[in-house]
C-alpha cells in the first residue's frame, strides 16, 4: 500500500517544477520509454534528465534520513535524536566544505567530498556520544547536539568566507539548508547503495535493535554487546549522512519526525518500523520537494527550509509531551 503511494507520488511529482508538465504527458513519455523509445522533445529531456533522477534521489534521501533518525533514536533510547538535531549533519557539512576549500577533496577524487563529510559526521557523532555519555537525560543529549551543530555550522561559514576561490564552494545556503537542485543520474547509484545497506543492516539486526530499545541494561543481560551495536550504528549512520549531505546539503527534522509517524501507524518492532519508516520518509520527501519547486515557481525554496517548517513544531510538541510525562 505504502509502496503504491510512493510510486504514484513519484509519478505525479514529475509534473511540478519551473515548467509544469501535465501528468498525462509524463505517463505517455514513461510508457514510451518502457516500450523502448525515448522522444527528443524538451519535455522528455526535462522528465528523464532532470526531474526523474531528482525525484528518485529525493525519495532515497528521505528513506536514508528517516532510517538514520530511527537508528539514532533506538541506540540513544531517545525519541528526540535525529542526525540534524545531534549535529551530525552539520559535522558532515563542515567536513565536506573543509575538503573542498583545502583541496583535499581532489586527492580522493571523485569521492573526496564524501570522505570529508564522512569524517566530519563521524567526528560530530563521537563528540556527542563522548559528552552525553551514558546520561539518561534526553534533553542533555539534544542540547549537546545543538551546541555541536552551532559550532560546526559556524566552522562551515568560516571556511566559506575564508575561501579564496568562491567558485569552489557552493553557497552557504546550500550547506545550511539543503537543496535537490542539480541532482543528476550519477548521484543516484551511491545513494541507492547506501539505502540498501541501511535497510539490510536494520533487517539483519532487527531483534538486536528491539532489545536495545527495550533498555541497554536489559539487552546486555540477554547477552548482547550493546557497545558493538552502537559502534556499528555510528559507522553506518555517519556514512549515510555523509552521502546525503555531500549531495543535497543539510536537510533537518525528517529523521526526527518520520520515525514518530511510523511508530504511530505501525508498531515499535524494527522488522515493521523498517518498512514504515523508509517508505513514509520517501513519500514525505518527494512531496516536500514538490512543494519546494511549486511554491514560488519558477523560483525554488531550499528543501531544508520546508522540512524545518514542518518538523520544528513537531519537535517542540515531542519535548512538551516528554516533559509532561516525566
Amino acid at each position, binding site marked *: 500500500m505504502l509502496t503504491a503511494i510512493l510510486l504514484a507520488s513519484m509519478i505525479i511529482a514529475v509534473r511540478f517544477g519551473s515548467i509544469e508538465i501535465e501528468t498525462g504527458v509524463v505517463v505517455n513519455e514513461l510508457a514510451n520509454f518502457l516500450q523502448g523509445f525515448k522522444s527528443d522533445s524538451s519535455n522528455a529531456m526535462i522528465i528523464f534528465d532532470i526531474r526523474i533522477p531528482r525525484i528518485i534521489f529525493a525519495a532515497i534521501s528521505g528513506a536514508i534520513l528517516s532510517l538514520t533518525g530511527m537508528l539514532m533514536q533506538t541506540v540513544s*533510547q*531517545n*525519541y528526540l535524536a535525529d542526525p540534524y538535531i545531534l549535529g551530525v549533519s552539520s559535522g558532515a557539512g563542515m567536513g565536506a566544505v573543509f575538503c573542498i576549500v583545502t583541496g583535499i577533496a581532489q586527492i580522493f577524487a571523485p569521492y573526496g567530498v564524501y570522505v570529508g563529510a564522512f569524517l566530519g559526521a563521524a567526528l560530530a557523532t563521537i563528540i556527542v556520544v563522548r559528552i552525553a555519555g551514558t546520561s*539518561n537525560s534526553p534533553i542533555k543529549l539534544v542540547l549537546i547536539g545543538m551546541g555541536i551543530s552551532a559550532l560546526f555550522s559556524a566552522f562551515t561559514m568560516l571556511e566559506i568566507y575564508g575561501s579564496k576561490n568562491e567558485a569552489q564552494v557552493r553557497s552557504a545556503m546550500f550547506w545550511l539548508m539543503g537543496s535537490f537542485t542539480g541532482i543528476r543520474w550519477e548521484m543516484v547509484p551511491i545513494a541507492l547503495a547506501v539505502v540498501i545497506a541501511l535497510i539490510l543492516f536494520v533487517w*539483519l539486526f532487527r*531483534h538486536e535493535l*528491539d*532489545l536495545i*530499545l*527495550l*533498555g541497554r*541494561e*536489559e539487552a*546486555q*543481560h*540477554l*547477552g*548482547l*554487546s550493546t557497545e558493538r551495536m552502537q559502534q556499528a550504528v555510528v559507522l553506518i549512520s555517519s556514512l549515510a549522512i555523509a552521502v546525503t549531505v555531500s549531495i543535497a546539503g543539510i536537510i533537518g527534522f525528517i529523521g526526527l519526525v518520520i520515525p514518530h509517524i511510523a*511508530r504511530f501507524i505501525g*508498531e*515499535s*518492532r524494527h*522488522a515493521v518500523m523498517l518498512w514504515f519508516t523508509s517508505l513514509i520518509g520517501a513519500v514525505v520527501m518527494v512531496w516536500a520537494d514538490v512543494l519546494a519547486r511549486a511554491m514560488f515557481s519558477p523560483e525554488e525554496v531550499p528543501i531544508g527550509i520546508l522540512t524545518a517548517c514542518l518538523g520544528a513544531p513537531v519537535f517542540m510538541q515531542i519535548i512538551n509531551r516528554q516533559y509532561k510525562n*516525566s
Partner: protein
Amino acid sequence: MNIIEVRNLSYVIGEKKILDNVNATFTEGKITAIIGANGSGKSTLMSFLSKTRRSTNAVYFRGQDVAEIPAERYALQVSVLPQRQKMIADFLVEDVVVMGRFPYKKKFRDYTKDDRRIARKAMESVGITDMAERKLSQMSGGEIQRVLIAKALAQEPELILMDEPTNHLDVKYKIALMRTLQAYGKTVIIVLHDLSLAIQYCDEVIIMAGGRVLTQGIAREIMQPDLLEEIFGVPFVKFERDGRTYINY
C-alpha cells in the same frame, strides 16, 4: 551445592567502601533473599552477580570465574530483572516476553514457534496471558513489572537475579510472584525490602550492613527481632500463626 559464590569482593568509589570484603554462597535450587538498609550494598552486590559490574577472581558461577564466561553464554544460565528503569519502547506484551528467548535465537533469524510457546507458558505462570496483545504504553508500572518477570522466566535460566521486583506490585501480585518463583524450582537471588515476604517465601537470607555481609543462613532462623532492630533502627516483632512465621515493625 553452590551455584554461585562470592569470594573477598570489595568495591570502592573514591573514599567510600561500597562493598567491603564480601563473602557469600548461594545454594542451588533455593530462594535467597538479600536484605539490609538503604546503602548497605545489596544492589551493588547484585550488579556483580549479574555481571553488570566487572570483577575478577571474586564471583564464581559453578566454580568458574564469571569474568571468563562470555555474556551470551551467561545469558543462557542467568536471567536478570534489574531495578526498574525508564522505558521508551512501546512493544506488545508478547513481543517483549519472547525477547527472553534471545540468547537461544539463531543469528539473523526470527524467534521460532518453540520460543513463542515458551513465552506463552511464562505469561501464563505470571497471569498475564490476557494482556498478550496490549502495548506497554497502556500498562501500569506493576503490569510492566509482571511482563518483565515473564520475560525473565521465558529465558529458562538456572539462576534468576531480581532486584526489588516487588516494588511496583500490589500485595496480591507480590505473593503471586513469590509463589511463581517457588514453583519454578530453580535458584533465585532476590533483593527484598519486604521482610515478611523474605521470611515466608525465601529459604535463605543474607543480611547486609555497611557494605558487609553481617550474617547468612536459614531465613527463619537468623531473621530475629533484635538483629533486625540493630540494622533497621526500629523494634520488630516476630510471631507464628497457623504454622507461618510473620515479622512486623
